[in-house]
């Protein structure tokens, strides 16, 4: 089984968010970047579990600049066999999917896994676009995945229950919570990662069809407002008119 895992890089959740260039561009200064948790905890670990059970190899791919290589090394430290970095700075999932599709279209992967979404932009769209370009079936938000021969049996959490699907491989699947358990890499993995192949390739030409036009921050959090205990009417009015929860 040849498995590809698409990994993305996102700001750490404790990072302070700010924008530059007239609020058109995210400001990465002083921000700590991490592997997107859905990719790392679920898609990658599921791929490793499949390899441990039925053999094969796990390749990770990332479309991004050289500054992201430490995050790629982390994926290798967790256990991926090799990595590909496409040397581009995609501005949208569309651009990233286009690059990844071009890089892997001749490589005959049996299974391509992604996280369900990145925790920054939450687009949840890369998998679908990648599947489209590779002419493969796509199953989003898998919370369980088992292989039976050349098919994958996939469970998805849906409103009020669970949907079970069978999909013919090769396929693209995006992983949600439940698909696997986070693995923290260890020192041996970190040392082993140093000698695993990380190949870099150029991107293909492609126009960015989707460009960010602006960002706005949510209004700053209000401090605590004290209401005197005898002022019940005041409290009810605030909850009703301002908080709109009553």
């Amino acid at each position, binding site marked *: 089984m040849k498995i590809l895992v698409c990994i993305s890089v996102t700001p750490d959740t*404790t990072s302070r968010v700010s924008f530059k260039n007239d609020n058109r561009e995210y400001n990465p200064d002083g921000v700590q970047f991490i592997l997107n948790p859905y990719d790392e905890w679920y898609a990658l670990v599921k791929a490793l579990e499949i390899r441990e059970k039925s053999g094969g190899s796990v390749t990770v791919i990332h479309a991004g600049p050289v500054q992201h*290589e*430490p995050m790629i*090394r*982390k994926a290798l*430290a967790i256990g991926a066999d090799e990595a590909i970095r496409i040397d581009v700075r995609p501005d949208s999932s569309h651009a990233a999917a286009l690059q990844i599709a071009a890089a892997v279209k001749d490589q005959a992967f049996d299974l391509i896994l992604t996280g369900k979404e990145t925790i920054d932009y939450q687009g949840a769209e890369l998998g679908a676009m990648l599947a489209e370009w590779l002419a493969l079936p796509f199953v989003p938000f898998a919370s369980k995945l088992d292989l039976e021969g050349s098919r994958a049996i996939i469970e998805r959490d849906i409103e009020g229950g669970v949907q079970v699907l069978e999909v013919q491989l090769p396929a693209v699947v995006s992983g949600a919570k439940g698909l696997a358990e986070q693995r*923290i*890499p*260890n*020192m*041996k993995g*970190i*040392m082993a990662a*140093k000698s695993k192949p990380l190949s870099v390739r150029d991107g293909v030409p492609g126009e960015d069809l989707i460009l960010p036009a602006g960002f706005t921050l949510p209004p700053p959090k209000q401090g605590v407002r004290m209401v005197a205990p005898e002022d019940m009417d005041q409290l009810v009015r605030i909850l009703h008119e301002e908080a709109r929860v009553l």
Partner: protein
Amino acid sequence: MKPSQREDRYQHHDYFQVDELLSEDHLMARQVVRDWVKKEVSPIIEDYANRAACPTHLFKGLAEIGAFGPSLPVEYGGGGMDEIAYGVIMQELERGDSGVRSMASVQGSLVMYPIYSYGSEEQKRKYLPKLGTGEFIGCFGLTEPDHGSDPAGMTTRIKDAGDHYILNGAKMWITNSPLADLAVVWAKDEENTVRGMIVEKGNPGFSAPEIHGKWSLRASITGELVFEDVKVPKSQVLPGVKGMKGPLSCLSKARYGIAWGAIGAALDCYDTALRYSKERKQFGRPIGQFQLTQKKLAEMITEITKAQLLTWRLGVLANQKKASPAQISMAKRNNVHMALTVAREARQILGGMGITNEYPIMRHMMNLETVLTYEGTHDIHLLITGMDVTGLNAFSG
């Protein structure tokens, strides 16, 4: 077990960009341990420390991340990393708790290291891989009830009895001893030479009672080692070393880790106090706006930064096998004292909240009292520096 409600919001502080002097492996190792501490240690540590119970389940996790003997070779259960990697791992563990760091220090530097350095091939094969995976827990018996700072005066003895030795004596203040599967014990032979040996639990005449009532290192278990006519097969003696060099070389290794570790405790106190000073308001302003609070914070980060630079340099020297025991003494002494001072100042910034276990500062402060004393007391390390610079020995004559 009651998990702590307080989220661990720790963020690293690196005022002089010392991180630029670290390699990608060092940074990854540090991040791995930081993530592990946030996930496994922070939510439970206040509860364990409160109950004075050792979170023994963490041994397995420490082994899994590779915190036991990270700088020993992979084939003997280590991680094959360098000394700076070992240092940053200890720093992150102690950022969580000095007791948890002690669990790892003892196993790696005081048990695996002497077996690796002085053990026979057979002893190495038998013990090291299982110590590396945490299947065996070890402890290190040097200190005695009547010989702490002066371990060379030890009275624990072995007597030749043909194919084995008979061991008699007692050790005191031994980290992990009540739950250890084996002890590396230092004792004098009939020629008064200090020898090291591996004594397994279950040996008749060998017991390891727990020491209770500690106000410090409460999440680490401490005990005695009592030997009454214990038969030790000669094959259990470490063949590669004779004399005080054996235990002292282990202590150098562990003290090196403590020099790094103490910075972790200091950083956690500083980080907590800095955040608190921006959130807590008095007289209508954040307390961080008052000059006296700023003086405390500014001095803390200055001292932390100095320690970071000193310790980074010590790490480079250690990688080149050039770090002298006296240099390690200086770093251990400076950094632990620095951490204790930072803890006390940070505690004040939190006012009344500072004395509770809602925040980690008081626990660090109490832990650091042990760290100041064990592995050579604050004053003994001063005398080591004094002897090194004057060439005159204050211990004897």
